[in-house]
């Protein structure tokens, strides 16, 4: 297991310069999640419009390079996509992290492929999936509210 597989340049770039980092306005649905083991904390905000398009995804929080980079990559990947596609991507990521889907599933989703390295470090999988569980919850909550 090589450290560079885990901390690929894409991961380190997103960690040092996260995308879509910041608070959303009142039109967003918010979910906060914590990983009690390491204290990572994320606030995930989504704006799902009337046409069921995930128009905006933003986040704030603090955590390790893996959790923050995963969140940043996720916001890029999900923003602007229709709900059904977003849900498919979420299932692909969570499924492959759980080892239920082939790691190659992530190759179809741009920078997400960089998360494949995490699978070789089982204790870090929870770091990578924190944002994904949060966005899943936020979407479910948003749908309930509409």
């Amino acid at each position, binding site marked *: 297991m090589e450290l560079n597989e885990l901390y690929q340049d894409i991961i380190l770039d997103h960690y040092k310069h996260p995308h879509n980092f910041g608070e959303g306005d009142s039109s967003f649905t918010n979910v906060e999640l914590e990983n009690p083991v390491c*204290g990572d904390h994320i606030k995930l905000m989504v704006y799902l419009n009337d046409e069921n398009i995930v128009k905006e995804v933003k986040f704030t929080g603090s955590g390790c390079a893996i959790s923050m980079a995963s969140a940043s990559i996720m916001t890029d990947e999900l923003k602007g996509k229709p709900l059904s596609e977003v849900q498919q991507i979420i299932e692909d990521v969570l499924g492959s992290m759980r080892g239920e889907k082939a790691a190659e599933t992530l190759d179809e989703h741009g920078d997400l492929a960089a998360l494949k390295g995490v699978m070789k470090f089982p204790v870090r999988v929870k770091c990578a999936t924190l944002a994904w569980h949060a966005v899943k919850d936020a979407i479910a909550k948003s749908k309930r509210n509409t």
Partner: protein
Amino acid sequence: MSDNVLEKEISVSDVILEVKRIRNDFPILSERFSSETGTVKSLVYFDNAATTQKPRAVLDALQNYYQHQNANVHRAIHKLGERATFAYENSRKKVAQFINSRSTREIVFTRGTTEAINLVAHSWGRKFIKPGDEILLSEMEHHSNLIPWQLLAKDRGALLRFIPFSKSNGTLQMANLNHFITEKTRLISVTHMSNVFGTINPVRGLIQKAHERGIPVLLDAAQAVPHLPTDVQELDCDFLAFSGHKMCGPTGIGVLYAKEKFLEDMDPYQGGGEMISSVWLDKATWNELPHKFEAGTPNIAGAIGLGAAVDYLSDIGMEKITLYEQKLTTYALSRMQEITEMKIFGLAPFRGGVISFYMGKIHPHDMAQYLDSEGIAVRAGHHCAQPVMRKLGILATTRASFYFYNTYEEIDFFIEIVKKAREFFGYGTQ
């Protein structure tokens, strides 16, 4: 610090403690990790506050027990039963001597520190703590010396109070102790040595003050007994809890020391075999001390392993261990302070070899992962002390913790890799 001074320190310490030879006693310390690209890393084990490695003497004692002594204790008439019972009770004797208790009646084997504290909270606390009573803890307790008292306080309608610690150096603020010890204080339970800061707390003064008011004191000595010579008669603590696995012994075995009068007054902890004297269908009488608190078949192998660990530590000498670790820790702290953006939590004047730190904004899990890639094992997280982290305003720290088998060379290597990690995560070279 000049290199010459350093070399002198190393040679002096090596004479005090033959670390090179000692390391050969621990098979796991020669463990190597090879990666897919063929690089090989040696183990540098700096997670000793979590658990320590085991010398061959302890491994052999476990093997020998299962191969030549295995039987249940205190019951069998046959030869193996005699051997097992002798070895188990002999370990109790060794432990009693190791902490200088008056008698083996004061030594209760438990699963570990956690169970020992829970035992007191349950058996002493439920009997003697009344609604409105206060239990005084400190803010720097491990969850195992906090949650049992929270449960007890909730059950009995009692109140928990806390001696605060100073954020600047991780010491207890003892100046206002009189403010925290009140007429309602019924027990004081504090850590002898912090598993986050390494602070060695001034427990002697605390115990004296408590006793002046007739308040018993429990010491969580999970980090202290493995590293400091411990004399329960000199300390005069009423209860003392520690774990075998943090002092070269096996997991799943620990000790509750308690003064006999407390154990006599307490009700049993669990019911079952071994802890009874006579049993009828509707009532029972209790076995004598300490067996009254050891229901069921105990961890016989674990206790025998702990006995071997105690022998091993005594052969080296606890004073020597303390002295060597103090020097090693002082050296590590001075080297760590060379690094810009290095924040160390816990700079008490009296401290053991536990160093919690934060390097710039590098998350402890990333730091620990980077160190691990070079074979260095450290801990990252809240160290079972979430209230401590909260007060410090952080979520976690990286923690390096030493034992007598660690070396100056390992610390130099650790410093080199921390500097590399610093660069890797975007802080420039140093």
